[in-house]
């Protein structure tokens, strides 16, 4: 009875003083819930269902790894925060013990408190998580401009159970740590509390000086490397190209020298951060001693000494916090840039149509009827072309399979867009490429050999014919406009009209043999994604005589070798943004948690410092310092304490970003044209500002809370 009363009273006091910490606990539960409901529900499934297989496996592994990592981090935070809560009350607990209270009773008090906190955090956290997860799909649509079918977060007892189980486990392990702490520690230790003193010995001075120089060297190397790194080399994009006997290009990355120096630079960064914080207290103490002009004014000397002490006591955790925040800021900012780049890469957004249905069918299949039934009845607006008899040809022996088409079919598409297409001579094949692929090495080839059966029925006479390649550079939009096949192969062959393919019967082309495709029917439509997607979704599931083939990109098979192929602009966007969408979640998840955990630790340290310094502040009041001066000192300490890690982390993530900037700028890699670098930089700056805003919120709240504790004392 009496014990639970004590617990509740204590907890109420702690809740008030450490509201920010408990707030973070609740937010952690919320984030955990939201991301677990994400992983648990149809979102991933719906993305993965159409995604390439290797991507599926990777994304699932990554999700699990990230969740595990975040979990461990949260356990640490809670144990850390809890040890602060215990420490704050060491004296009180010590008094209980001296009063003859049993150790097990004290342990019971602690257990009861942790239990109450756990219940509170889990209930409130999940309570917030449920509506927030409902908002997620809206947010994704808003920020990425894509509509993902199946992405509806419904309330799930499974996730609630998992969250409860998980955090129950976390709090239980924290409780065990608590009880172990209490039963091991001596009464005397509990009574004395903690008041570690900074010992500014000569050795300390030398250590600080050395560490400071080491920090400068580490930072210097890191900054120098990020600014001078050979990026082409680093990304392995400098290939020495040679061809094998079959004409296959062999690519080799030139060297990993840059990779090695980057690793070294990372070590420089990490070592530098640790050395920096190790040295900081000593350096500050040196300044305090030397610059009396600054320090002997108002409360400056007190402020600086307090800060020195705190930096000295917490140098290790500050180093970790700074590194964590560096990762956090980098992830959030670079993640934003990558997402934008993905979105910018979407020239497909210029597609004149919202979607295209193509049907490849055997001659006796009435494609139109099915299409009408499935799509037209739902009031899709039809526009664009209906093209029959496109012929696909695949030629093997190059870098990849490349699709070949009959001239008349391709020119039909070109005509539709009012773009002239040169007619190839009888010994020529057109090689259509988008501007971006001009660098690619297979363009060096001037001739191509195509192998096919002259007579399909008997298959007795194999013809080998050599054509001259005529390069035709086309706008990318044109290539991807109408048929999905053209989207993925940015290089397309167009055969001369003289090469008559129309008589060839249907075979599935393979092994360098030209085959006649089935009858091909195409039409484009305009309809908004959130209307179209569910219909296709349903179509894919309900089409009576077939199903979808999940290993291939949105191809719906029907029986009798009839193939439905539905492509929507939205889905192309989703598909091309797959990595971006995943990155958005991953960076928000990790970056966000890192940031919150870092800020909470800073808050806890600020709070414990005030609690331990109460007597010092009381002395100041007695000496005639008014509360305004005192608050200013507290504020100055807080600003410095919060600003140092933020500044360091911002600078380091800025330099880390230097490595990626050329990629964003389109100087490196296969970045598509039309990407607006300034836009990306602006968006990344705004993301950084958001980080600063979150930072500010935590800073202000922690100032308010510490000030309140101080005023009360």
């Amino acid at each position, binding site marked *: 009875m009496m014990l639970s009363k004590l617990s509740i009273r204590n907890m109420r006091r702690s809740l008030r003083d450490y509201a920010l910490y408990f707030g973070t606990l609740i937010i952690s539960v919320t984030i955990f819930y939201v991301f677990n409901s994400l992983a648990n529900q149809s979102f991933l499934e719906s993305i993965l269902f159409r995604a390439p297989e290797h991507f599926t496996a990777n994304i699932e592994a990554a999700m699990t790894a990230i969740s595990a990592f975040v979990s461990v981090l949260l356990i640490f935070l809670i144990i850390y925060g809890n040890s602060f809560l215990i420490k704050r009350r060491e004296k009180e607990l010590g008094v209980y013990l001296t009063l003859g209270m049993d150790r097990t009773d004290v342990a019971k008090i602690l257990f009861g408190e942790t239990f109450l906190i756990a219940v509170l955090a889990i209930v409130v956290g999940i309570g917030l998580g449920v509506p927030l997860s409902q908002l997620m799909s809206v947010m994704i649509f808003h920020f990425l401009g894509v509509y993902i079918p199946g992405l509806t977060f419904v309330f799930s007892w499974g996730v609630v159970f998992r969250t409860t189980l998980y955090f129950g486990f976390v709090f239980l392990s924290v409780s065990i740590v608590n009880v172990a702490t209490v039963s091991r520690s001596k009464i005397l230790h509990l009574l004395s509390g903690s*008041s570690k*003193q*900074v010992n500014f010995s000569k050795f300390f001075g030398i250590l600080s000086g050395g560490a400071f120089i080491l920090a400068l060297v580490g930072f210097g190397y890191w900054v120098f490397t990020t600014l001078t790194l050979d990026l082409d080399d680093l990304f392995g994009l400098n290939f020495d190209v040679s061809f094998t006997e079959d004409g296959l290009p062999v690519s080799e990355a030139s060297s990993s020298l840059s990779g090695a120096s980057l690793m070294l630079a990372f070590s420089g960064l990490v070592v530098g951060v640790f050395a920096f914080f190790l040295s900081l207290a000593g350096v500050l103490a040196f300044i*305090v001693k030397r610059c*009396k*002009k600054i*320090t*002997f*004014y*108002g*409360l*400056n*000397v*007190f402020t600086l*000494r*307090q800060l*020195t*002490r705190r930096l000295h006591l917490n140098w290790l955790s500050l180093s970790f916090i700074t590194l964590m925040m560096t990762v956090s800021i980098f992830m959030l900012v670079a993640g934003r840039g990558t997402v934008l780049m993905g979105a910018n890469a979407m020239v497909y957004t210029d597609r004149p149509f919202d979607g295209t249905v193509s049907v490849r069918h055997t001659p006796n299949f009435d494609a139109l009827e099915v299409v009408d039934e499935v799509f037209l009845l739902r009031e899709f607006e039809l526009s664009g072309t209906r093209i029959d008899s496109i012929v696909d040809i695949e030629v093997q022996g190059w870098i990849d399979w490349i699709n070949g088409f009959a001239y008349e079919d391709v020119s039909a598409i070109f005509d539709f867009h009012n773009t002239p297409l040169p007619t190839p001579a009888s010994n020529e094949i057109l090689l259509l490429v988008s501007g971006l692929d001009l660098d690619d090495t297979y363009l060096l080839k001037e001739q191509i050999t195509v192998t096919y059966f002259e007579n399909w029925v008997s298959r007795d006479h194999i013809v080998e014919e050599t054509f001259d390649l005529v390069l035709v550079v086309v706008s990318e939009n044109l290539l991807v406009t109408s048929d999905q096949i053209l989207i993925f192969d940015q290089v397309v062959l167009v055969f001369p009209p003289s090469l008559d393919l129309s008589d060839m019967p249907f075979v599935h082309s393979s092994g360098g043999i030209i085959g006649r495709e089935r009858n091909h029917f195409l039409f484009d439509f305009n309809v908004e994604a959130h209307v179209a997607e569910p219909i296709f979704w349903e179509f894919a599931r309900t089409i009576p005589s077939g199903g979808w083939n999940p290993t291939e990109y949105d191809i719906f098979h029907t029986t009798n070798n009839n193939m439905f192929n539905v492509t929507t602009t939205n889905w192309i966007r989703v598909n091309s943004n797959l990595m971006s969408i995943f990155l958005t979640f991953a960076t928000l998840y990790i970056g966000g948690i890192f940031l919150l955990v870092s800020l909470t630790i800073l808050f806890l340290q600020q709070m414990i410092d005030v609690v331990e*310094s109460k*007597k*010092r502040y*009381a*002395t*100041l*009041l*007695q*000496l*005639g*310092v*008014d*509360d*305004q*001066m005192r608050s200013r000192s507290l504020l100055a300490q807080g600003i410095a304490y919060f600003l140092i890690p933020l500044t360091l982390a911002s600078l380091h993530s800025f330099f880390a970003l230097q490595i990626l900037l050329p990629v964003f700028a389109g100087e490196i890699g296969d970045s598509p044209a039309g990407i607006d670098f300034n836009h990306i930089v602006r968006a990344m700056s705004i993301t950084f500002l958001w980080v600063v805003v979150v930072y500010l919120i935590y800073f202000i709240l922690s100032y308010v809370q510490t000030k309140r504790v101080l005023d009360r004392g």
Partner: protein
Amino acid sequence: MTTTPILKVKNVQKYYGNDKNVTKAVHNITFDINEGEFVGIMGASGSGKTTILNCIATIDHLTSGNIWLRERSITDLKERELAKFRREKLGFIFQDFNLVDTLTVRENIALALTILKISPKVIDEKVEKVAKTLGIEATLDKFPNQISGGQKQRAASARAIVTEPDLILADEPTGALDSKSARTFMETLTFLNQDLNKTILMVTHDTFSASYAKRIMFIKDGKMFKELIKGQSETRRQFFDRIIEVVTLLGGDQHDVI
């Protein structure tokens, strides 16, 4: 000399605790202190000496009664004015020193001046000078936890007198000093009192230290018990003997618990 009291304490009461459990720490005390006086307060442990000092120093609030400093009632002052008063007019030597443990002795002493926003150079000179007077030059760059109790006491005293305040309140300033240091310190206080005309109110258990004062007030159970005034021609030795008499009368001996 002058007759306007710098400090008027009238019917002051101070109770601690709640309705159920009241400690009457100060039970109706009235006295005046004139400008330039050196007054001692003696009394058994727990008789309310520190409480009175805290009330005068505006660190504690009165339960009832009134205190005037230079004819201004401090009970009417606002929090900020009180702070200004404390840092400009008052020097307080605390019974338990109250040195800031994160600051060196030098910085502790300087703190009293820096909050007055005096130029750093002047501060440095003043700190050196007062440290020399109290014999703690060698400890200036040490932290409080690195020096002895006596040194701490002198550091605390140095901090209280370095601003040359109008009113010095001292709570057991010689409690942790050996007799030689105690003598030096009391001579310093006497110098401040006689040559700089500073008013001093000092709590002490030590009869020897008390004998430096011009007037001694004895307190018992939070009430004024007796008052001794040093005669114009009386030697310190004679005054000392008279103090001993009252102390024995009070029932304690001169080595009362600190």
